[in-house]
């Protein structure tokens, strides 16, 4: 394991993980996942919120196995490399709120940083606004970090605490197999399913699981993080994680070209709108929230898999945030922003600024 560990922590390690995700995400779309949504963490957590009935937006309900695989793949990697460290207690309520607003911002744009990159690699130029917003939000977050913002220390805790999020995911997996989708039916047992829209589109469960377990494993080993990539570049001028996201975009672009999934333009992109200001602003909010919480939505899943109970709270915040986003009509649709999406972005920015300004450690 030693040599392998060194490799994934190296420059070529992070590049190879980015490339791996970049190839497999568009392939999952070819196999059935929604357009430019190969492994969108925010979208898929939103679909999970729908599948368990936390919101009832009929077109986005599916218990996405990719999210389960990310956590469980990371768990396997953490145990294989003796890195499973149960820890918790670092401002959980703050992480929950940040998770909720990160999700709301992402759903105004219609995608998390992962999807922004996948959208860009498929020619959806609206993603340029989203990525600029993401970088802007992260930049604001680095100002708070420079000003002394700090979530506080976590404590080592019981092994069972670190296992709770993986166990929740295992529970979801059991539900998925107990109540599988019945063609044309909107519900089986306790799980909701979409009969049309993006929630009705998915790759075969077993393939999604295998791919996401592999991504979860590799991302835990390499510390792949789409937010950290920009944060480290802005804050420290350290490009290590940035190489990973460049590789993701480059390989996703090539894969989309080969698969005929590259269509350049702003209009008529899959599950996207063209309201530039709100594509930008939604991702400013998401970028700021991810930066204040210390990781992108994928990274939070991988941390939750290696025993970080605080990252697990952030994940739960995102899932609940998705429910709010759809129940309160905050989420966008291809027609544009939701009726209350703009207000939610403004409130989110105020809440994040309040957190960033007040949680400062005195020198």
């Amino acid at each position, binding site marked *: 394991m030693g040599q392998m560990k060194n490799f994934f922590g190296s420059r070529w390690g992070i590049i190879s993980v980015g490339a791996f995700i970049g190839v497999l995400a568009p392939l999952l779309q070819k196999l059935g996942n929604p357009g430019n949504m190969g492994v969108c963490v925010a979208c898929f957590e939103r679909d999970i919120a729908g599948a368990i009935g936390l919101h009832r937006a009929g077109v986005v309900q599916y218990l996405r196995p990719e999210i389960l695989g990310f956590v469980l793949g990371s768990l396997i990697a953490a145990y294989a490399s003796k*890195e499973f460290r149960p820890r918790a207690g670092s401002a959980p309520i703050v992480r929950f709120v940040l998770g909720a607003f990160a999700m709301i911002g992402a759903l105004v744009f219609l995608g998390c940083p992962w999807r922004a990159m996948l959208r860009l690699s498929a020619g959806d130029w609206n993603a340029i606004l989203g990525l600029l917003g993401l970088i802007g939000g992260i930049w604001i977050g680095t100002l708070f970090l420079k000003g002394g913002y*700090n979530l506080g220390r976590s404590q*080592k805790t019981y092994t069972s605490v670190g296992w709770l999020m993986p166990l929740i995911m295992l529970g979801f997996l059991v539900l998925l197999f107990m109540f599988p989708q019945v063609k044309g039916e909107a519900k089986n047992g306790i799980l909701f399913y979409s009969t049309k829209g993006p929630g009705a589109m998915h790759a075969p469960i077993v393939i999604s699981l295998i791919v996401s377990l592999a991504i979860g494993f590799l991302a835990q080993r390499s510390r792949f993080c789409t937010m950290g990539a920009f944060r480290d570049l802005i*804050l*420290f001028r350290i490009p290590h994680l940035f190489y990973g996201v460049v590789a993701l975009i480059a390989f996703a672009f090539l894969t989309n070209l080969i698969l005929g999934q590259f269509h350049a333009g702003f209009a008529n992109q899959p599950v996207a709108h063209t309201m530039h200001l709100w594509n930008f602003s939604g991702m400013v909010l998401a970028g700021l929230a991810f930066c204040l919480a210390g990781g992108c939505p994928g990274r939070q899943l991988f941390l939750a898999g290696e025993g970080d109970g605080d990252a697990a709270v952030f994940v739960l915040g995102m899932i609940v945030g998705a429910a709010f986003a759809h129940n309160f009509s905050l989420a966008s649709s291809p027609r544009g922003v939701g009726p209350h999406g703009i207000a939610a972005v403004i409130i989110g920015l105020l809440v994040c600024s309040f957190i960033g300004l007040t949680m400062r450690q005195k020198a």
Partner: protein
Amino acid sequence: MPEIVDASGLSCPQPVLMTLNRIKALNKGEIEVLVDTETSKENVSRAAQSQGWEVAEVTESATGYRILIKKG
């Protein structure tokens, strides 16, 4: 005696931020950084090396890692 930066229990990017702040303040010498995860150990080592500091010693303890960095 090395200066001590206690970043144990702190999540990303605090350990790197604290280490680089101390590096800037000292310019040279020895710093012992305490972290509790493998990720923080890798990040702190990478950041120190990017500033021309040498990772002299890494020791594992019950609560995490002690990273001794130095610059002559």
